[in-house]
């Protein structure tokens, strides 16, 4: 079967033709603001604005023009163990537009605004008390962003593989020119020095990690739909990536690796009667992927937060000292934002490189022979 490059292209087109940008008016609900709300609209809540832009959400917010909010609804998938509250059904799939931007309940579910479950879906009983969270498997903004990045990756990488296969031994052509040096870099600078002669088995996880992290980091910086979803700045995503490294390291660990953990070459009093060194080594087993997770998450989240804060400086100043102050701050603020965005591009590359390098080092330590 030929490599599915063209099919991926058609799949992406098909998915995106189905998306309608839904304004609050189209779903039949007009976001009417009472006079009290209007006054609140004047104040620019910087903290809320910044946090909303980097956290996950149930719909993909595109723009807010005055009173109308334009956003793309995403599917919500819920499994509840209390079907009596939700018309007798346990499994629910619906679009997030049913919640009308968090202002109404739907079938016993609601987007909560309490402190405990802020912006998450909770179950409500007949009186309107919030009970708890159902099992939430929704396609949120981060998930949709990750899926889009994966589709782009499949498209690009399969195209490169197809051209590489077609002109075997010849000069590289087209997209192969972009991808092949990166793969060679990972093979020669990351995999071979860290893992040794049997590096080919580990090229698949290393390449997947590197390309996924790099593309999600970079796409998170472009503010236009369908890019701009903060995927790697989400600790659940980086936790899963760190778990990949953890599982590959420990599943592929050879006898020498486990011996170094449970029976290292240290004086006997450190092992018996109280196993100090094995305990230390076991905590090291957990902390190494944990550090990977926190490093990537914090770097990406900090970058996005700083960019958003610099842009919101304009609005803070205009609230504080009038519109002219806002205009005066704008060039400075935009210049800073551009500078930080460029820095973030560099940080994206560095973080992807460091994650992959450390994973390769752990794989190498797991399969090292006794010297």
């Amino acid at each position: 079967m030929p490599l599915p490059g063209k099919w991926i292209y058609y799949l992406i087109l098909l998915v995106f033709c189905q998306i309608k940008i839904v304004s609050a008016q189209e779903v039949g609900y007009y976001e009417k603001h009472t006079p009290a709300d209007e006054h609140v609209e004047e104040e620019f809540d910087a903290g809320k604005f910044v946090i909303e832009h980097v956290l996950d959400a149930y719909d993909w917010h595109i723009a807010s023009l005055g009173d109308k909010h334009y956003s793309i609804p995403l599917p919500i998938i819920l499994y509840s163990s209390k079907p009596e509250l939700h018309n007798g059904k346990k499994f629910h799939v619906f679009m997030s537009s049913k919640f009308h931007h968090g202002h109404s309940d739907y079938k016993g579910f609601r987007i909560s605004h309490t402190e405990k479950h802020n912006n998450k879906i909770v179950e409500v009983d007949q009186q309107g008390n919030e009970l708890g969270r159902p099992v939430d498997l929704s396609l949120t903004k981060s998930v949709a962003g990750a899926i889009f990045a994966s589709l782009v990756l499949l498209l690009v990488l399969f195209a490169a593989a197809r051209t590489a296969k077609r002109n075997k031994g010849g000069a590289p052509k087209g997209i192969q020119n972009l991808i092949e040096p990166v793969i060679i870099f990972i093979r020669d600078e990351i995999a071979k020095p860290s893992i040794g002669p049997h590096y080919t088995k580990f090229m698949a996880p290393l390449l997947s990690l590197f390309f996924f992290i790099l593309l999600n980091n970079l796409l998170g910086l472009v503010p236009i739909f369908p890019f701009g979803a903060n995927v790697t700045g989400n600790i659940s995503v980086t936790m899963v990536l760190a778990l990949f490294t953890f599982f590959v390291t420990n599943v592929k660990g050879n006898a020498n690796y486990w011996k170094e953990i449970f029976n290292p070459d240290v004086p006997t009093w450190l092992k018996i009667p109280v196993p100090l060194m094995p305990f230390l080594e076991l905590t090291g087993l957990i902390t190494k992927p944990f550090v990977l997770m926190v490093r990537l998450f914090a770097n990406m989240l900090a970058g996005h937060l700083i960019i958003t804060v610099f842009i919101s400086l304009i609005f803070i100043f205009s609230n504080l000292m009038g519109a002219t102050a806002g205009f005066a701050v704008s060039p400075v603020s935009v210049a800073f934002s551009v500078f930080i965005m460029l820095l973030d591009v560099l940080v994206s590359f560095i973080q992807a490189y460091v994650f992959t390098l450390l994973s390769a080092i752990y794989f190498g330590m797991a399969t090292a022979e006794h010297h």
Partner: protein
Amino acid sequence: MLLTIMTVLLQVTEGAASFSELGAAFAASFTAIGAAYGISRIGASAMEAIARQPEASGDIRSNMIVSAALIEGVSFFAVIVCALVLFV
């Protein structure tokens, strides 16, 4: 002396900011100082090494970036803890 003044001020302005927030803010700034000091030492020694042997500059650059990223990772731990104190 400075700390006594600040603690007195904090007692007086009860409710505006608590000790925990003061501690978290101080911790975050000290972490920034520590990370900047560590990474500046790496940068300085990398510059010296490149000056001694310019043909090894590629190797030195990659090692410098890796060490800087590792140290930054540790500083981000402290920043996350301070953020947890402040916002959770």
